[in-house]
């Protein structure tokens, strides 16, 4: 019966061979092991021995052809029922990999300090949270913010074995805006992203998150997070907090709920869907929500749903936002001043530069970085707008950490550009784009949502022309920038069409009177209007 001979593998890593010469022709007798052909490969030149006794039947690969390993080269008519040569033994016999290693951990989400609360358009407000950490961290625990753990939520092990000196302040800005329901976002980039972005359902007090241990204990013991006070870094609810609470609760001594201020933030921890697959409510077991309610809830309790009405359960986010807004209003006497800004110069620069900018930096050039830059310069001249109220005195912040509001479907986040005064317009643009993207994907680090000293809200991105925001506590003011719209304006005695943008400042009248506030905002206006349109982008 006919036997097909294939090209053998002559040398490791050899994949093909060339038939140099046939030593047997069809009809020639062949003895087993006798050479039948000469073959050339990269590594060796060799003769191929016959696999069996017989007669050469057919030459399949003529002299000079290149044949891949395993492909037929000739056939032999054998006298015996010979089996084909064994397949080249190879690694397929192989070694099994043995032990199953542990499965990769289920969640890849870093403990992103899930974007803290959200206040309405534009801000992530950590409501009472800002105060919470500072109040609660005091007793007995070392100063929060020291060392590398504080510096970033996604700490990697320190490879230099030394604590890093970075400080993270436990402050959190919170703010809310009037209830227009506008969600502002960072210009174009945000607009694009928010289209496809699913709701985070985040709610949280500023600056902390739930570690796996805490989540597990909360689930196991059926704990309502709003009942808890965080004693960890930045107001974090620690495992110990949960265990102590459970112990007290089971012993029958759960503390009463305190008024909105102190405990509210503690009850609004972040639980992003990325971290917990279940919708937020399922984490809070049924009985729990009832007893706990801050002021807003008590107001709500007095409203009875009528027939046909739908009651939308309050999510953690919603409660959190509500608490923050109320508290901010109760804390700061809000006053407002507005100016119109002629954005011609900015427009011209932007139009000229935007294509090249996008190509070089991969992000769109919007109006936002121009305004941010002007705001920063103005803050440098008017430090009382970059400050906080305290009974000991008005605290003028050394750093300018500019919060830029990002609106998501059900949440508001204010990522903070730390030390924004060190950034150029290009730096501001790229940094803000990056923060915005990571805010939407829930990958912000702890120090990126903490420590803001002033907030800028791009309410114009979604089309508003005039807005009044609620201050992000404990800051001194918040600035909205509304839509750039072409309007007829008077120039000299003629009418011209100019791109005009409204800037709206809400300020805490305890810290600043109208004079400095107005000077501040008009400075921003002048800085924007006096940009050299032929200047280069820096």
């Amino acid at each position, binding site marked *: 019966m006919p036997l097909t001979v294939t090209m053998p593998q002559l040398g490791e890593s050899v994949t093909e061979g060339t038939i140099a010469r046939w030593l047997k022709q069809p009809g020639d007798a062949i003895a087993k092991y006798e050479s039948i052909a000469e073959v050339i490969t990269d590594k060796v030149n060799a003769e191929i021995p016959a696999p069996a006794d017989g007669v050469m039947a057919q030459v399949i690969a003529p002299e000079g052809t290149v044949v891949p390993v395993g492909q037929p080269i000739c056939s032999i008519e054998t006298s015996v029922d010979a089996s084909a040569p064994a397949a080249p033994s190879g690694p397929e016999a192989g070694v099994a990999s043995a032990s199953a290693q542990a499965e990769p951990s289920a969640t890849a989400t870093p403990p992103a300090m899930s974007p803290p609360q959200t206040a309405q358009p534009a801000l992530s407000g950590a409501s009472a949270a800002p105060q919470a950490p500072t109040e609660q961290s005091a007793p007995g625990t070392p100063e929060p913010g020291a060392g590398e753990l504080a510096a970033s939520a996604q700490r990697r092990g320190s490879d230099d074995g030394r604590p890093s000196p970075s400080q993270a302040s436990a402050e959190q800005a919170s703010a809310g805006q009037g209830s227009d329901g506008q969600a502002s976002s960072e210009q174009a980039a945000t607009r694009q992203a928010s289209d496809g972005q699913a709701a985070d359902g985040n709610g949280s007090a500023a600056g902390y998150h739930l570690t796996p241990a805490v989540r*597990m204990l909360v689930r196991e013991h059926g704990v309502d997070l709003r009942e808890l006070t965080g004693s960890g870094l930045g107001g974090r609810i620690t495992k110990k907090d949960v265990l102590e609470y459970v112990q007290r609760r089971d012993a029958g001594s759960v503390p009463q709920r305190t008024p909105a201020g102190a405990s509210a933030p503690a009850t609004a921890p972040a639980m992003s869907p990325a971290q917990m697959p279940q919708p937020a409510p399922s984490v809070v077991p049924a009985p729990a929500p009832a007893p706990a309610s801050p002021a807003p809830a008590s107001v709500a309790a007095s409203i009875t749903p009528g027939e046909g009405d739908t009651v939308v359960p309050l999510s953690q986010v919603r409660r959190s936002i509500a608490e923050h807004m109320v508290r901010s209003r109760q804390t700061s006497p809000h006053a407002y001043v507005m100016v119109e800004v002629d954005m011609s110069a900015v427009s011209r620069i932007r139009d000229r530069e935007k294509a090249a900018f996008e190509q070089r930096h991969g992000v769109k050039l919007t109006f936002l970085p121009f305004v941010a830059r002007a705001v920063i310069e103005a803050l440098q001249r008017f430090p009382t707008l970059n400050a906080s109220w305290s009974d000991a005195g008005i605290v003028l912040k050394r750093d300018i950490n500019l919060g830029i509001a990002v609106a998501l479907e059900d949440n508001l986040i204010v990522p903070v550009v730390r030390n924004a005064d060190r950034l150029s317009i290009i730096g501001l643009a790229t940094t803000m784009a990056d923060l915005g993207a990571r805010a939407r994907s829930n990958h912000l680090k702890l120090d990126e949502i903490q420590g803001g000293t002033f907030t800028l809200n791009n309410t114009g991105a979604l089309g508003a022309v005039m807005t009044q925001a609620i201050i992000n506590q404990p800051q001194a003011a918040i600035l909205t920038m509304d839509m750039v719209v072409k309007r007829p304006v008077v120039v000299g005695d003629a009418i011209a069409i100019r791109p005009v943008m409204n800037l709206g400042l809400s300020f805490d009248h305890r810290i600043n009177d109208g004079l400095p506030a107005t000077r501040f905002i008009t400075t921003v206006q002048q800085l924007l209007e006096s940009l050299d349109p032929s200047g280069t982008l820096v």
Partner: protein
Amino acid sequence: MAVQTYIEAIHDGIREEMQRDERVMILGEDVGKKGGVFGVTEGLQKEFGEWRVLDSPLAESMIVGVAIGAAMNGMRPIAEIQFQDFIMPAVDQIISEAAKMRYRSNGDWNVPVVVRSPFGGGVHGALYHSQSIEAIFAHIPGLRVVVPSTPYDAKGMIIAAIRCPDPVLYFEHKRAYRAIKGEVPEGDYTVPLDRATTVREGTDIAVFSYGMMVHTALEAVDRLAADGFSCEVTDLRSLRPIDREAIVTSASKCGKVLIVQEANLAVSVASEVAAIIAEDCFDRLDAPVMRIGGPEIPAMPYSPPLEKFYLTTPDKVEAKLRELAAY
């Protein structure tokens, strides 16, 4: 029970086993007449003769290679490498040969050799008398790597190592030799070669360490205890195989973890412990897993301020623990 130093315990363990088992022999530089540069084998050549306590030429590959051959022909050799820093020429024999002999012969041959060597710093040893490179060997299947931290463990583990049918790398922290004392029972006992041990129970932070660093960690842990923090300290003892169960149990119990070592931090034993915890304790973690170890410089320098910069000290460990406690 007598109180002994770490070095006395090792010495006694070797001596008693040599009395019990005539197959046990020692070879290395200066082990015979001098009794070892630290004195670990003091008096043994006198007692057991020159063939069983053999002063070797200055050739590390030879020391281990000959030990391997003798082990395959019925002996139980203890090969001493004078300083772990000098083990490099012997790495081929250790990793290519000893580690793989049983596997490559499919169980036909084995190598019951102990390779002992002092390691670690803080003794003004500078770059080549202070290294901690045990991680290189902890990476290799077929080897066992152990580091005792107390005299009790030192004696029990050297006896177990000698009796073990597979190659054991037994690393002794040179600073522990005379600095660490403890109770050591008389006579024959062993300590398992693959188990960690809890040296301090606690609840808030799980601390893992080995060698001299166990003592450093305990000092820092005591300071925190005074402030009301309860840390659990586990002495790994065995770097390969590593006691996965003990690690997972302690880390899960506490939720916060600090791994303390003297060796360079990157790609180290601490890295492996952290990975195990990340895989198996994820849901129990209340803070990121932290490690503390040597900086990214090749070894410990000579001058005191530079040496101190490198060393993992109780102060540094305490600072790290406090950070974790506050998290």
